[in-house]
């Protein structure tokens, strides 16, 4: 039985540019259960944001194109929907929070009118009803004096308050899936803690599933149950967040964790991943990580590894674990 809210299978999104094809997302599969938070981590250029945009079908075409794959929401393939049907999904069943609240909010409309927009479209509410929803939502996300703030413009709010307003917009239609693309990257730590707490509380209250995209491993550790580690357009490791972070299988995950300055260990020198993230239009042969990998073998230089189930009980794309390969056709995680 399939209890997954979202099943992404073998999703490929390419960008066709003058410099060649950019393989932004290449065969990415994951699933999100009802009420679960899945964290997607990766460095810039790993394809994590493109994954979110592809699920929402917001990839700009051209140059971008979702080349193949399936995005199943409650069993329905979103990639097969018409433009009109997809519009009913966006903002209704799936909502998104962006990194920079100042650019994501429209500066010439009040916060209230921006919140009211989607209940009016998706739930067919009247102006007055939608306004009541907007005030309720502002209260829910912890904005003081919501009756007054509803008529404020984005520039009148602080960064943290703007991000709260964005969350109010995203959640006002009670979406089944909330996609957060670096929701706290532009915020200070003390404000970040407030926003993460808010997202966690609302998720529990409304039983929403969350896709949390971030480069901050600490944030993922705090909010998600499962984690997808991406590198250069592919999933490198996928499993429970506690297992992946305490006992990483993939050399990339391991190196990433070791290169973070940690207070507890007190090392004088940090672990370094030599080199840099490869260009997505000119990717290396073999394993995408092999030029930077400390444990590379001959096979890594020529053959791309598949995502396989490692003995530790999670998905890993690495030749080190390639005995008796079981490829990820359909995801059925234990």
């Amino acid at each position, binding site marked *: 039985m399939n209890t997954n809210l979202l099943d992404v299978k073998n999703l490929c999104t390419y960008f066709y540019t003058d410099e060649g094809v950019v393989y932004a997302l290449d065969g990415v599969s994951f699933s999100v259960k009802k009420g679960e938070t899945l964290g997607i981590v990766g*460095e*810039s250029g790993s394809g994590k944001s493109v994954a979110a945009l592809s699920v929402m079908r917001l990839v700009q075409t051209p140059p971008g194109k979702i080349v193949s794959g399936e995005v199943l929401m409650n069993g329905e393939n979103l990639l097969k929907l018409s433009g009109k049907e997809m519009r009913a999904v966006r903002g209704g069943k799936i909502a998104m929070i962006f990194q920079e609240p100042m650019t994501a909010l429209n500066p010439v409309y009040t916060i209230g009118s921006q919140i009211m927009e989607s209940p009016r479209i998706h739930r067919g509410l009247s102006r007055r009803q939608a306004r009541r929803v907007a005030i309720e939502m502002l209260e829910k996300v912890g904005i003081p004096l919501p009756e007054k703030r509803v008529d404020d413009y984005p520039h009148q709010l*602080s*960064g*943290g*308050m703007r991000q709260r307003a964005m969350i109010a917009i995203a959640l006002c239609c009670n979406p089944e899936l909330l996609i957060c693309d670096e929701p706290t990257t532009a915020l*200070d*730590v*003390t*404000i*970040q*803690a*407030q926003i*993460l*707490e808010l997202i*966690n509380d609302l998720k529990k209250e409304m039983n929403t599933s969350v896709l949390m995209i971030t*480069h*901050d*491993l*600490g*944030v993922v*550790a*705090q909010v998600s149950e499962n984690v997808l580690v991406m590198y250069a357009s592919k999933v490198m490791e996928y499993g429970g967040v*506690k297992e992946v*972070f*305490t006992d990483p299988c993939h050399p990339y995950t391991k*190196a*990433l*964790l070791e*290169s*973070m*300055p*940690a*207070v507890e260990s007190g090392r*004088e*020198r*940090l*672990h*370094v*991943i*030599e080199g*840099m*993230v490869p260009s997505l239009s000119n990717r290396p042969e073999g394993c995408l990580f092999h030029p930077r990998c400390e444990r590379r073998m001959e096979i890594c230089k020529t053959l791309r590894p598949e995502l396989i189930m490692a003995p530790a009980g999670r998905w890993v794309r690495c030749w080190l674990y390639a005995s008796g390969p079981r490829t990820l056709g359909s995801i059925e995680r234990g």
Partner: protein
Amino acid sequence: MSENRDKNVSEAETLLVLENLRKWYAVKSARFGTGRSYVKAVNDVSLTIRRGETLGVVGESGCGKTTLGRVMIRLLEPTGGRIEFDGRDITHYDEKRLRPLRKDMQIIFQDPYSSLDPRMTVGDIIAEPFVFQNLYTQAERREKVRELMEMCGLDPIYVRRYPHEFSGGQRQRVGIARSLALTPKLMVCDEPVSALDVSIQSQIINLLVDLQAKVGLTYLFISHNLNVVYHISNRIAVMYLGYVVELAGREDVYFHAAHPYTQALIKSIPKIEFDAPPLRAQLKGDLPSPVNLPPGCPFSSRCPRARRDRRRCEAEIPLLREISPGHHAACHFAG
């Protein structure tokens, strides 16, 4: 560890002294006749930086850490107070007298994309300080640039390339090479790794640590990332609304924080820990506007401790005082 290092440092080894340093920006008053109002970016900061040490400065955006770094090396005019660099009072030096001193005070900027001139080659960018200071012949400059590039982990064959041909981490290396060109005594690092990915960040941090050992640099390391600051610093100054609220060895700041703001800041870091209780918000509300600072303690409006004696916290600005050897905090209830 850092405490011991601190204790062994004598007066003679002080490189920079700040006394009640203040930087206010005048802003247009809201109403006519209400007088001028000011953005109080840096308020009465007194501290010393010792030769060869790294002093970390942490705080949230708008706390004045960048302004402090720039006033300190006289890229900005101080509004009040005194700056003594290498035994000289440079508070009121004019451009002409500052020019030779610029050799000794350099800065690395946060954004490696906007801090390099896109129309200059990397070689010219690194050699530019020599041009300004009128140092060396053409051939010597070429040789110096080659050395600097190697020192910063850049292949000298890229000397004729332009900044856009490099990745973020490499550009930051170019910025570091340029700052190192004149072998400065003090280097202000203003969020040098904040724009970089984790795996690149560690490369740059290691480079800065290596260079310090090799050249004997003194760093003022500004960052909002506490883990990075902890890693690289000997002592840490925590800023809030333009005030230094805590100043101590890194272990003291991290494990025995005395100021409630520092405590909240440290508890707010999302950690990779699964047995500890989940992350909770430590502070309510936002940073007050630096134009209308609350009277009394700048932190009183958000402080969980201020409830104990609200009247005192809201009336009296707590001074930065030594609560244990080498550990300073600005709180009425610290220690």
